């Protein structure tokens, strides 16, 4: 796993770049200022644009009753929740991608790798196929079942990671996780086989991802596990740097490797589960954003983590903007856009540097 490909594709371990001589604090300020401006600009611009023209003056015009104010409803029900969901999902997937790549010491790791995303999909497929009928605080069955599914997958993977403490390596966790992922995918296929025509149609559509949440309740619900994940991520930047060099040398430098890995695994899984249950499995964000960010700011996780969070949000807001306007009045599933835009941009950056 730590062959030449690893070091070329993903400078996880390039610790001696010339740039690193600039004080980290200064670079952190510049990084957050740059990516933060991008994210804020995306958040402010995206709700103004869509398949219909709306007038901001009408949106905030108190003299028109809300029930009759079409512009306000387009802004507050159709667009704003969507942009917020994109920001949250994009940053959660990007952060999880960074953490999984460092934890598994593998540049190809993504939020999908260890099966948490597949667990979330399985939950949603079951809710659709078996017509689950329950809701909790305004959250409906599909996202609830989806989050439960991701949590189930997390428990399995966590069990594996606990078992691996008997002197094995990251590759065992990786293989175990990939196997869990394959197993869950097989169960997804089985559940889909049981579905009828319209359910199959809805299952396929769900798997393409959608940020059109149309209310704030699911966003609020997703914020709970995401906030827990952020708390976990906040403890990680320095130790992830040490960990990505290798667990032995990290331990030698005083890192509690077990605890760090546990925090990393649980936080990244919670963030992934919350993101997928909110928007479906939006592909590519979790693998491409971390690499794009590393190509720009280098490998220091103190910079990569905040930059990925901000850039992931901005990237997904941008992709969703394209998805909802490019073939207006119809829409493309956002997962298609992330891969079509992200893929070529990533290849260009990769080969330009090489």
């Amino acid at each position, binding site marked *: 796993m730590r062959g030449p490909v690893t070091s070329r594709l993903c400078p996880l371990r390039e610790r001696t770049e010339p740039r690193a001589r600039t004080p980290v604090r200064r670079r952190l300020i510049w990084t957050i200022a740059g990516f933060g401006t991008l994210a804020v600009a995306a958040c402010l611009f995206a709700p103004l644009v869509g398949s219909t023209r709306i007038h901001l003056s009408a949106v905030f015009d108190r003299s028109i009753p809300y029930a009759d104010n079409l512009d306000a409803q387009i802004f507050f029900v159709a667009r704003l929740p969507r942009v917020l969901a994109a920001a949250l999902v994009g940053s959660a997937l990007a952060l999880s991608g960074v953490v999984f790549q460092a934890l598994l010491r593998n540049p190809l790791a993504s939020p999908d790798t260890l099966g948490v995303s597949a667990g979330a999909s399985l939950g949603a497929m079951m809710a659709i196929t078996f017509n689950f009928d329950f809701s909790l605080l305004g959250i409906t069955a599909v996202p609830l079942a989806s989050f439960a599914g991701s949590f189930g997958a997390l428990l399995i993977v966590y069990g594996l990671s606990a078992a691996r403490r008997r002197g094995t390596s990251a590759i065992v966790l990786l293989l175990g996780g990939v196997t869990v992922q394959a197993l869950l995918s097989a169960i997804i296929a089985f559940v889909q086989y049981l579905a*009828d025509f319209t359910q199959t149609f809805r299952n396929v559509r769900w798997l393409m991802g959608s940020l059109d949440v149309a*209310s704030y309740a699911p966003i609020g619900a997703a914020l709970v596990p995401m906030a827990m994940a952020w708390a976990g991520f906040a403890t990680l930047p320095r130790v992830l740097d040490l960990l990505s060099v290798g667990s032995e040398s990290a331990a030698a430098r005083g890192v509690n490797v077990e605890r760090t890995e546990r925090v990393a695994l649980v936080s990244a899984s919670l963030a992934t589960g919350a993101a997928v249950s909110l928007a479906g499995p939006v592909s590519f964000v979790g693998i491409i954003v971390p690499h794009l960010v590393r190509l720009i700011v280098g490998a220091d996780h103190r910079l990569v983590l905040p930059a990925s969070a901000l850039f992931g949000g901005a990237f997904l807001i941008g992709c969703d903007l394209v998805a909802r306007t490019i073939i207006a*009045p119809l829409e493309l599933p956002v997962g298609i856009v992330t891969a079509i835009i992200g893929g070529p941009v990533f290849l260009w950056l990769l080969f330009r540097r090489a």
Partner: protein
Amino acid sequence: MAVISSRLRLAASITVVLLAVAVLRVVPRAADEPRRIISLVPATTEMLFAMGAGDRLAGVSNYDRFPPDVARLPKVGGLLDPDVERLLSLKPDLVIVYDTQTDLKRQLERARIPIFRYVHRGLPDITATMRALGERIGMKAAAGAAAARIEQQLASIRARVAGRPRPKTLLIFGRDPGALRHVDASAGYGFLHDLLELAGGSDALGDLHRQSVEMSTEMILTRAPEVILELHYGDSLKPEQFDSERRVWEALPSVPAVRNNRVFLLGGDEFVVPGPRIVLAAEQFARVLHPDAR
């Protein structure tokens, strides 16, 4: 003597064979009038029953629910997963397949089993399919009569609502329960669109030449339908949930259908099977769109 008798016997047997062939050619039997039909399409199953050929069915698809008689028939899979082995074991003399089931068609041709290809299109194609199917199984008159009856009933619904204002109507056939997410609507092509127009509605998505569209919240708001018809079928929604599901729309109060309380949830399998029961579907559409038209 022995030579003559053997020649006589040969001549007699040749005559018998020739006579048999002649008789078989004059009176068309099994080959032209299938007696063991397998229908993989719920719509054609219902058509066969409507023309009085239900007793000729030897098997139906896994998705067949109507009429209740189909419950006793063997199930042989569906559009995506036909059970070819089971299908062949039932020894059909005609199999009704979707035209898109390319592999199955090839397998049946190889087994020399005749097929009838079903194509899913607009409203006029339903009675056209019925007539073609009737002709294929030697029940031209009965099928023609049943088709004419359907056309007549549809025409009377059309006449009843003619000349009335046509409300801009959004016809939804699927969404997430309890939320306005993944809203699938019928657009300007297909039998649901045709039925809606026939029953005196104006399709809010009539300009989009597609069978279905996944609608964003923004699109629902800007299309501003005056009536929303939501179809529920299978076991997707219990009738006692209709009220709470209708209230989900209150999140979009500027939509005229929501403001004027004209969101209707309709339950029944007749909305998704383009067979003889489309008359019931059209009747329900007409009743909610034009409640005062009798």
